[in-house]
């Protein structure tokens, strides 16, 4: 039961972030426009370059493929593709790739691998036998503690984090994670209820599923549907249709 509660907690963390994004979006009420690198987004001296844009004379130019958004005077690009960019305090799911005397190396799908030190484990671990807690191939749900040049440190010292027992991992583009969760978790809760499967979503795009074989398969298909149709309208209804009719 405790474990179940913890899972909810993680999802809730993410959904708060998602709803923050949503509120920003609705307050500014600006439409988003698809841009490619080198494209002029706006002209005139009224604007300032934000994320992934540069100013060239009086033009704001895109440096990345994505959706351009103008918030007050700041023009920024919201990426829609690319590898996961780790940030501090991201909740992620990773797979253990190596063990040494001081901790575990974890693959999290980003450009650099992460490290979980022994000291960041919440419970006592026998130093002579740390495989007991987690071994190569295990999935863990962790939080990014720090991002330094070339290394990422993880921690398990927070509610809901730990080794994921059983189940399996699937992977989607990290930029589509907010779609999979939906507004205030509506999408993920829908999939959970319909498939009777435990689902944990990491902000790096790794998703852990645990349930009956049939439920896992259905949940995976629904998530893949969300990934391919991430930008379409009425996505929750489409997924609901899919889950009920399948």
């Amino acid at each position, binding site marked *: 039961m405790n474990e179940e509660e913890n899972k909810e907690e993680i999802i809730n963390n993410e959904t708060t972030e998602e709803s923050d994004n949503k509120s920003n979006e609705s307050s500014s009420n600006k439409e988003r426009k698809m841009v*490619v690198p*080198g494209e002029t987004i706006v002209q005139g001296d009224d604007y300032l370059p934000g994320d992934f844009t540069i100013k060239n004379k009086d033009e704001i*130019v895109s440096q*990345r*493929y994505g959706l351009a958004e103008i918030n007050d005077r700041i023009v920024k690009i919201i990426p829609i593709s690319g590898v996961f960019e780790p940030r501090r305090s991201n909740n992620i799911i990773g797979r253990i790739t190596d063990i040494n005397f001081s901790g575990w190396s974890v693959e999290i799908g980003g450009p650099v691998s992460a490290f979980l030190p022994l000291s960041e484990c919440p419970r006592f671990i026998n130093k002579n036998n740390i495989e007991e807690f987690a071994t190569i191939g295990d999935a863990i749900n962790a939080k990014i503690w720090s991002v330094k040049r070339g290394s990422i440190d993880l921690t398990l010292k927070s509610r809901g984090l730990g080794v994921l027992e059983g189940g399996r991992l699937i992977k989607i583009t990290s930029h589509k994670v907010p779609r999979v969760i939906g507004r205030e978790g509506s999408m993920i809760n829908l999939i959970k209820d319909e498939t009777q499967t435990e689902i944990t979503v990491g902000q790096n795009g790794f998703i852990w599923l645990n349930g009956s074989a049939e439920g896992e398969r259905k949940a995976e298909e629904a998530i893949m549907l969300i990934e391919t149709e991430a930008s379409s309208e009425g996505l929750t209804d489409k997924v609901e249709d899919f889950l009920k009719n399948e």
Partner: protein
Amino acid sequence: MTYTKRPDGREMHELRPIRAEVGIIPNADGSALFASGKTVAIAAVYGPKILHPASMRNPEKGIIRCEYNMLPFSVSERARPGPSRRSKEISKVTSNALSSVVDLSRFPNSVVDVQIMILQADAGTRCAGINAASMALAHAGIVMNELVTSVSIGKIDDKIVADITKEEEDWEEGEGPTDIPFTMTSRKNDIVHLQLDGNIPTSRFKESIDASVKACNKILDYQIRALKGEKINENEGKK
């Protein structure tokens, strides 16, 4: 026989029918297809990811590693798979052209792998490959200042023509064939790759630069439309 008309009936500055699409390889971080007439190229981009071997790592900037290859069945005489002198050279010029627009300082110690495959060859394969790679890089969310666009300009006999075919490349009458692949950036029109195979007087060379600017702008339009989700296929319905 002098060269007055193009064998496939195109205007001198006209491009071949274009096919362009992104996201054709779901496994890759970014991918694209670019076809000009019978020349078909696909490109897949993986990364940024940690660079191995570690001795090649640069803590100040990342690198772009290109691999150009022709599939064995892309030409009528089976192409031996694997790197050859020619494909290594093309990989090198492609990675140089792409490195000039990508913001390499954003991914220190890392590498972006770009794989280019030629499915079918009818001259201008390196240009099609660069066009596909440029779209694939953008599609992979790599930070880049602008796109690159490539076209092969030819001087066949005494005419300057755009986007030449194999048949034109082998034209041996009159002044003979000259093939000049150009690669330009999309905003500043900087030339980031230029090769020349044949002979051309300086005065005509300036003419060919003008032709390449025009042709590149046309191709750029296709690249942008494809990146914005359109599936372009001007070959549809034709054989």
